[in-house]
Structure formats: structure tokens, C-alpha cells
């Protein structure tokens, strides 16, 4: 089988790049080792957040924010996105000061999406919030989406655009020929001019297969979902400097995360929940919302994702081998970026360059030679 581009990884970033490239006329083959969305993209909290974004990510994030408000237009479904707002509360004076400084910095750069809110405003946004919360940052146009619906919408749109998707297809070897790539997989051999490494937590492995050895850590963020309960919390809520991110879904369940880490298996293929570490997020949750104390947890899980040392993704061409594009390392906050990053990767696939400034995401940051040097 042969295509213009072979995308390795059926998470949202692989799907988004596939969709955009196919719409521009490329013949796209996407392979996923398990099923679409099996890893980070299915495990995600699906927060759509410009709030608190790293400055280097902000242009891509603001572009993506506009997409999220018109997902119908992009993929034919709203992906369950609700602009319920995101609120970052300060539980102490120091946090409040740091939030203030950040917002001032943003405003100096001409960005006004984050607003400072005081104690009265946070209480009117969140009647149940604990009295010790002093205020915080608020982005009313942020929100959250439904990850599985998002995966389905991107899959369906990609298929409509002509992408060929194969699941339960593990890439085991990549070799370069004069004209392009030859990929051996558990489902046969594929040939393509360009390979996109969108393999999430296993991007390092794929980079080795392709002869451009890169390295990254694996984040193992834990999530908790509770039983259904009466609707009381509208925005997505985080706490500055604490391991807490909390929202109430449209089903009434609470989804709680915030970056508490599970245990990574020695072979780096799986991860399990670390209950004691999880307790930290639960303490933060009941500290900020005391009335949630009696709500029952139904399920917990761990999502695995590549993490870089500066927590910024890797997006761009390999500097070692021809025809290889990397897109991974979203370090726990890549969901919101899916629409814009897909466009950037399609630029690289179809034009060989993009107008976006990708310096902050360059591949050399994670190349093994550089790390060794």
C-alpha cells in the first residue's frame, strides 16, 4: 500500500493532521496500534484552555480557541464543546500576586483574554467555593469538550476527506529508500513519501525506528470520575500551583485531575493509579469545594503522554532524516491545540514549511545527541 503521507498514531493530533492534509489533496494513510483515542486523547480531561498558556504556545492556542467556537464548521460536530469558562483560583496571597503579574504581562503583550476576578465574582460564578479562595483568573470563552465525541468527529471528518485509517496496526520498522519510506507493521508493509510521528508517549520509540533518536519523559496523569450529582459547577476550575483541575460534565459527573502522577511500568507500556498521590488531588478538591466530600468516586485512570523538559511540544521536521515530521510532547495540555497544530502539520506535509513560528518547538531540544552534549 502506498500513500503520500503515513501518519503513525491515531490520537487527536494524528487525526487532525490527517484531516487537514487530506483536505489539501494529500493521500493520507493513518495507522494506530490499538484503537483511535486509546491513549492520551481518550484519557484526557478535554479542557479547552487558553488560560495560563505558555507564551510560546499562545498564538497556536488562540488560533485553536477560534476553531473550538466553530467545530461544526471544522469537523461537522460541536465535539461537545461548551464555552463554560475556565477559572483559576488563588488559595493564598502569593498565588494571587503571581496571577496578577501574569495577567499584566499578557496585557503588555496585547492579550486580554484573561481577566482578574475578585472574591465576590468567584463566589457568584461558583456558589459552593470555599471561603478561603481569594480570587483568580477567568477566561469566559474557554471551556471543555467531550473527548470521545471529539475523536469520533475527527475520525468521521478524516474518513470523509479520504484518509485511510487502520486500527490495531503497530509500526515495527521504518526504512528510508530513494523515494521515501517503507514501514513494516503488524498489518503489512506501507510506503509513503513522508512519515508523521504522532505516537504520543511512544514517539521516542518511533523516532528510533526512523533513525532520528529523540528522548522524552512520559507523563502519567491520573483522572477521577465520580457518580452523577445535581448540577452545581459550571466552569472548569483549577487552583494556582496545586494539583487540581475540576469540572462537572454534562452527565452530572465530576471529572477531577490536575496532574497527580500514576506509576509508570518498567517497560513504559502502561501505567497504574497511585492512590496516595491521588489523595493530593482529592484533598485539593474538597478543600476548594467542601460540599464534594461525600461524592463517590466511580473510576480512576491514568493517561500516558510524552513530556519534554520545558513542557512544550515538539513540532517540526526531523533534522537528521528527510521526510520525517514530529508532533508530540504536549506534556499534558495538547487537547486544546488539536485544530491549529493539525493545520501546521498539514502545512509542513503539503508545502514543506509553515508561516507559524515553530522555533520554540524545534526537534533539536529533544535529540539524544544534544541532550548528551
Amino acid at each position: 500500500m502506498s500513500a503520500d503521507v503515513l501518519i503513525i498514531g491515531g490520537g487527536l493530533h494524528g487525526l487532525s493532521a490527517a484531516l487537514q492534509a487530506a483536505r489539501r489533496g494529500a493521500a493520507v494513510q493513518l495507522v494506530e496500534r490499538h484503537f483511535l483515542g486509546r491513549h492520551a486523547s481518550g484519557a484526557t480531561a478535554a479542557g479547552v484552555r487558553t488560560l495560563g498558556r505558555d507564551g510560546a504556545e499562545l498564538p497556536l492556542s488562540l488560533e485553536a480557541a477560534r476553531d473550538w467556537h466553530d467545530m461544526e464548521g471544522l469537523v461537522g460536530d460541536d465535539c461537545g464543546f461548551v464555552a463554560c469558562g475556565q477559572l483559576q483560583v488563588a488559595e493564598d496571597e502569593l498565588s494571587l500576586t503571581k496571577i496578577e503579574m501574569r495577567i499584566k504581562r499578557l496585557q503588555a503583550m496585547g492579550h486580554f483574554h484573561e481577566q482578574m476576578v475578585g472574591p465576590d465574582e468567584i463566589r457568584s460564578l461558583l456558589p459552593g467555593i470555599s471561603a478561603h479562595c481569594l480570587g483568580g483568573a477567568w477566561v469566559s470563552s474557554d471551556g471543555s469538550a467531550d473527548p470521545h465525541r471529539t475523536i469520533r468527529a475527527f475520525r468521521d471528518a478524516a474518513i470523509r476527506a479520504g484518509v485511510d485509517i487502520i486500527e490495531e496496526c503497530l509500526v515495527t520498522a521504518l526504512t528510508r529508500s530513494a523515494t521515501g519510506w517503507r514501514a513494516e507493521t503488524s498489518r503489512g508493509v506501507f510506503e509513503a513519501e513522508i512519515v508523521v510521528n504522532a505516537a504520543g508517549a511512544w514517539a521516542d520509540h518511533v523516532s528510533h525506528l526512523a533513525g532520528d533518536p529523540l528522548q522524552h519523559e512520559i507523563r502519567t496523569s491520573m483522572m477521577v470520575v465520580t457518580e452523577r450529582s445535581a448540577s452545581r459547577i459550571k466552569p472548569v476550575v483549577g487552583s494556582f500551583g496545586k494539583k487540581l483541575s475540576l469540572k462537572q460534565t454534562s452527565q452530572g459527573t465530576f471529572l477531577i485531575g490536575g496532574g497527580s502522577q500514576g506509576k509508570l511500568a518498567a517497560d513504559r507500556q502502561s501505567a497504574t493509579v497511585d492512590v496516595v498521590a491521588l489523595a493530593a488531588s482529592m484533598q485539593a478538591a474538597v478543600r476548594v469545594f467542601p460540599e464534594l466530600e461525600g461524592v463517590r468516586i466511580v473510576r480512576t485512570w491514568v493517561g500516558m503522554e510524552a513530556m519534554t523538559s520545558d513542557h512544550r511540544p515538539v513540532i517540526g521536521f526531523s533534522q537528521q532524516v528527510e521526510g520525517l515530521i514530529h508532533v508530540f510532547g504536549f506534556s499534558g495540555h495538547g487537547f486544546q491545540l488539536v485544530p491549529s497544530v493539525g493545520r501546521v502539520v498539514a502545512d509542513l506535509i503539503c508545502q514543506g514549511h509553515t508561516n507559524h513560528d515553530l522555533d520554540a518547538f524545534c526537534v533539536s531540544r529533544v535529540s539524544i545527541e544534544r541532550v548528551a552534549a
Partner: protein
Amino acid sequence: MSYDVAIVGAGPAGMSAAIRLREFGASVVVIDEQPSPGGQIFRGIERNASSPVFPALGKDYQKGQALAAAFRVSGAEYLPSTQVWQIEDGWNLYLTAEGKAQRIAARAVLLANGAQERPVPFAGWTLPGVMTVGAAQILLKSGGMLPEGKVWIAGAGPLPLLYATQLLNLGGRIAGFLDTSTPPRLSALRRLPGAWRDFGGLLKGLRWLRGIKRSGIIVRGFSDLRAEGNEHLEHLTWEMEGKRHRVEADVLLVHEGVVPRIHETLALGCAHHWNDEQGYLAAKVDRWGESSRKSLFVAGDASGIGGWLAATISGEIAALGIAGRLGISSETDRLRKRAHLDRRRKRALALRPFLDAMYPPPRNRLPDDVIACRCEEVTAGAIRAAARNSPADPSAVKAATRCGMGPCQGRQCGYTVQALLAEVHGLPVSEVRFFHIRPPLKPVTLGEIASLEKADRAT
């Protein structure tokens, strides 16, 4: 707290293991969510011993009294009304009781957590008024409660017969029994010679049936049972000899056998085997009851349905296995022989092949409109549709439909999803995985997890 052995479950298997381990001087903790010892069969045994319900519950039940008494004086630490919601390598067990979570450590773990009733979806099974025979029996054992009005029982296996007998003994009435078992097939009869070693068991079955015949109608050879009604069960209908039959009903009790509880062993990554005849998964154990994970033992119905007597004996065997594993005893083989444990277990299991062949799990095609996942109200049709669009992996179906995401963690829909995936993809059921099981094993509150000590350090 730290122990030599932590036992989950104070049923026949857990109690007898605890007693035996205490004889070796091991420090033992036994955790059970019930308020008193007994497990499923001997539920409420201590309190019921002095109640009018006692004689009605039958001879087997009464045998639990001595076992519970011996357990009480064994010196094992007993934590009643306590749930085990997570087990970690090493071993750490996370418990909650009275709104507080705690962690205990043990050198070995014995899962004696028993069985659960096999969930069998059919049209109307989620309607109020429809419940399982096991649930009705729990009400009977824990408070002498009997169902009222026109009570129907539908199902197969020993438990409906036993429950019906207990109910009749207490003056309850049954409008009718819809027997879903297939007529004894050759395969069942061929196993009779083995079963004859357990005359007592067989006679019991016959006695139970006669009692029920006297009290109501027995219906056999029907199909497509439906429970119908507006807010509550009002009537039952079924298909027989080309005609639809309909009766009034206030209560319908259903039962299609019991299957091992596997969430614990699945979550711990133990190897399992598929029992094709009975259609269930059970942890693989060696001749001492040790699972594929060192120092993790499984005994009783949790390691394969064998009934209470076999459970008691397998608990003793596991106790010896644990004593050997922990280096507490080097005589385990000799002790095993001396107590005739293998011969006794063989005898206790004599009737089992006959029962297993006699009562296979229902294998009829589930109509598309029937709800498979009660928690999230997902129909068989929706699961089929998702299965057609994904690989034969229950996680994919779960992501696509929310099926299995509710509070029961797939205990109600796991096997149904497996069977539907097998059907859609044309695979044998044994080749389809079960759901991934993630903590907590029992619902635990945010406050309870937050209360775990040492958590602050992790913030």
C-alpha cells in the same frame, strides 16, 4: 497496620482460611463489607440463629453457625462493615469504614471474595419490581423480608429452587416458576455417575422442585420473556408454541447462576482462564490456590464456582499454601494429606459437573432494544453499532457508548459486551478481552480518599 495475611471476605472460604492460618500463629486480618461473618450462604448467621427464620433457611445454612463461632475465637482480627477498594503490589490494601480510609500492609493476600449473580439482560429487566433471586434472598436473610403480591421466579440453577423453598417454608407464596433451564441433555446425564457420589445433593434438588410444584405453576420451554409495566412491573409475557402468553405480576425474581468475582484479580493483572461451559472468567490458580502473582491467593467461589463446602476446603488449602509461601510451615504437603483435603474437596465438587452441564448460561441472541448497561442505559443495539465501527476491544466500545462507565464498573455489562463483540466480529467469546478494571474496586468518596494519611506530602 501490617499483617502476615490479609483475607478479603468472611464467607466459608475466608473464615476457614483464617482459622487455619491462626493455628500456625500467623497474624491475620479479615475484611468484609458485611456487618457480620458468613459470606453469601451464611449471611446473618449469628443473628438469625435465634430467630424464627432459622429453621426455614435449611440444614446447609445452619452448618454455618459452628464455622462462624470458630472464626470468632480464632484470634484473627476481623474488620466488618469495611470495604476493600484498592489492592496494590507488595501488598497494600486500601479500606474504608465509617467514612474513613486507611491502608494496611500484608505479606500475602487471600481473595475469598466469592461470587456474584450472573447478570442476564432481557426486555424489562431494569423495571422496578424486577430483581434478582440473590437480592431477594439477602432481604430474607438480613431481615426475614418476603416479597408480596404475585411473585414470579424466572431462571435456572440451584439458587432459585433453594430460595423458593426457603420462601415457602416461611409461608410465602409463588405465583409461578418460569424454568429457563434446557431439558437435561445427554451431556448432563453422562456426568451423573460422578454426581451420584453426592446423593444428598441430588435429593435436595428433587425435594426443592416438589415443594415448588405444590405452590404454583411451572412453565418450561418458552422464549422471549418480557417484563412490562409503566413505572413498575405489571405483567410478564412470553412466547410459547407460537403464542404470546401474558400473566399479571408484582414481583419478578430472576437468576441465571453465579460467576466468580473477578474485578480484583483482573485489576491486579492475574492470568485468567475462560470456563466455556459456564461462560465465565476465573483467575488461574495452582494446587495451593496461588494466582499467577506470587503471594496472591484466591479461594472459594472467587476462583471458580464450586459451592460453599468446596469453598471451605479450598480456604483451608490456600491457608496451607500461604503458610508454605511465607515460610511459616514446611509441612504443608503432609498436613494436606492428613486432613484428606483433596479427597474431601473432590467429594464436595462431585455434583458440580452435572449442575454445570444442566444449567448452561443463556445463549440466545439479545434483541437490539434491550438495555445492556444499566448504569448508563446503553442498549444492545448501540453496543453492536459501536462494535461494528471498532476493533474487538471492549475499551473501544466503552469509549464510544459510555457502556461500563457507571458505578458498577462493568459488573453488570462486562460479559454482555464481550458476547456482543464476539458476535459482531465472528470470534469465539474467549478471544475477546474483558474491560480494563481500574480502581476503586468499590465506590469510595472524595473525602475518604482525601483522608488518607501522608497525602499532604504528595501535594
